């Protein structure tokens, strides 16, 4: 019902373009001359620690925060000059709840539709669709105030989608949720991506959650320090490593030392950085008698962040 005509020549076009965005609060620079673009229909993740400038960037793109300088376009519309056109094209799930907790789930969605000028006859169909998507159809008459944190977040996601936006912004959609609910939220986001031709712009400081993205930009201290697909970033900034569990730790240690191989040891587990799988096979051959089991692991986005910024993500 909300499928937009999808022309092949526009698929890879940028739906979000940010050029030289800077935002200062007094003397503090929250976002420092950043540029990036997001292609239509992709999942774009903005990664970084709290206070890196993620929310500031999202808030300027969402038209609720004025920038200091730069040029922003969403869906081909200038964020300064065509505010309402931009607003129509986007859905937003803020970091903090923005639901009316006295109203029911359905009422929250209905008012949202009204704010977005949706004709009444289309409302219930759209509301049914998004409530099904987040699995809350049977809770439609419950007051939002009576829902758990995870359910509220799902209501917010449903509400962000009900007016069929071209871009859905998710600012830390899983912050403050327990691990299981976090997994569920990502499940909904994944399903959403499959069911609707929509661009998703998300921020998170949980690096592992960004694995589903088509592309990633890492921001730290207001600057983009690295960007690319998750695989590109891992290939560029991390090394694969071989994890070996030893039968006999003394033998293993001896063999590795004799061969001049660097390793980290944790009990029976040895972690050995390798250039690629080939090198891992050579290594395994050298110590094959002492091996109980092994695996070759790729670097994570967390490792990318560590390599790029020289430290772990601040919590």
């Amino acid at each position, binding site marked *: 019902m909300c499928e937009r005509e999808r022309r092949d020549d526009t698929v890879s076009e940028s739906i979000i373009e940010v050029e030289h965005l800077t935002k200062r609060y007094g003397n503090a620079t929250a976002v420092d001359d950043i540029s990036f673009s997001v292609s239509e229909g992709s999942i774009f993740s903005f990664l970084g620690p709290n206070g890196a400038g993620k*929310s500031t960037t999202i*808030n300027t793109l*969402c*038209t*609720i*925060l*004025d920038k200091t300088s730069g040029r922003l376009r969403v869906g081909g519309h200038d964020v300064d000059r065509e*505010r*309402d*056109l931009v*607003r*129509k094209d*986007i859905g*937003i799930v*803020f*970091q*903090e*709840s*923005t*639901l*009316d*907790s*006295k*109203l029911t789930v359905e*009422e929250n969605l209905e*008012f*949202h539709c*009204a*704010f*977005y*000028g949706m004709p009444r006859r289309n409302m219930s169909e759209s509301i049914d669709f998004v409530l099904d998507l987040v699995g809350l159809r049977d809770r439609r008459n419950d007051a939002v105030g009576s829902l758990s944190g995870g359910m509220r977040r799902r209501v917010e996601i449903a*509400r962000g989608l009900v007016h069929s936006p071209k871009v859905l912004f998710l600012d830390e959609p899983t*912050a*403050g949720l327990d691990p299981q609910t976090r997994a569920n939220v990502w499940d909904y986001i994944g399903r959403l991506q499959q069911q609707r031709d929509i661009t998703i712009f998300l921020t998170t400081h949980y690096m592992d959650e960004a694995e589903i993205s088509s592309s990633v930009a890492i921001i730290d201290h207001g600057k983009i320090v690295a960007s690319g697909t998750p695989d590109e970033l891992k290939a560029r900034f991390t090394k694969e490593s071989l994890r070996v569990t030893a039968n006999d730790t003394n033998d293993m240690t001896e063999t590795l030392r004799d061969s001049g191989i660097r390793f980290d040891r944790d009990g029976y587990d040895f972690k050995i950085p390798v250039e690629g799988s080939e090198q891992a096979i050579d290594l395994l051959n050298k110590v094959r008698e002492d091996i109980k089991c092994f695996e070759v692991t790729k670097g994570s986005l967390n490792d990318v962040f560590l390599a790029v910024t020289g430290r772990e993500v601040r919590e």
Partner: protein
Amino acid sequence: MDATLAIFRRNMLNFSRDRVRVAASLAMSLLFLFVFSFAMKSSVASQITQPMNYLICGVIIMTVFQQAFNNSTAILDDIANGFMKEILVAPIARREIAIGQVLSSSAIAVAQGLIVLIAGLFMGLNLDALHLLETIGIMLVSGLTFGSIGLFVATVAKGSSAFQILSAMLVMPLTFLSGAYIPTAAMPEFLQPVIYLNPLTYITSAFRFAAMHMEDLSQAQLVQEGVAYDIGGFILTPQLGLLVIVTIGLCFLALCVRKFDCADFSAVRTFRHHH
């Protein structure tokens, strides 16, 4: 216009869910009615011909302007709990938000006033259809004016914790100095300038004038009844007072619209809940 209507409906719905607030405000009005009825029976109101109706009218209009003001400042709750952000990112003209807020504040306030008015009808207030329409009209003017003032003040304050205390410190004494409960004639001479500068004085007078059928009274009698004021020989009639209120209301409504159109609501982020 759709958005204005949506905001209006949302505020009405929200209010209807808040039974405690409705009950508390009504209880307050009835308490004032009860307490001050003793004062009105005593010598304080010797020159007033219908002391009980005088009081009932005062409490009705007090309910309207106080509630309109309070309802408008409830926007601070919307800012604090994040809902304001939902409205601000929607493709709605900011002025539609302001107008929707003022309209809902006044509508709720008038509804509350009407409940007190109905109670008043049982206590001796006498209104025919025409006078009822007049009084509703004046209640509406009162609601719109003080709803606009409340919204303006609230958006200027943007949720400072001192705001609630400060507004209570202002609204309460100004209500007393409007003659809503006790005739202004009974108040000391040095307070008279404050009484004349207090907009609540004029809305209270205009309401009494309509609700107590005073069309046929002379100016001197109106002054006697405490609904017109002799300010150094210049007679400020209830009609003129109403005009003052309408003017003040329009000014504040314009200020609200302006404030909403150009205010940088990025300050809304101040209320972010950190996890």
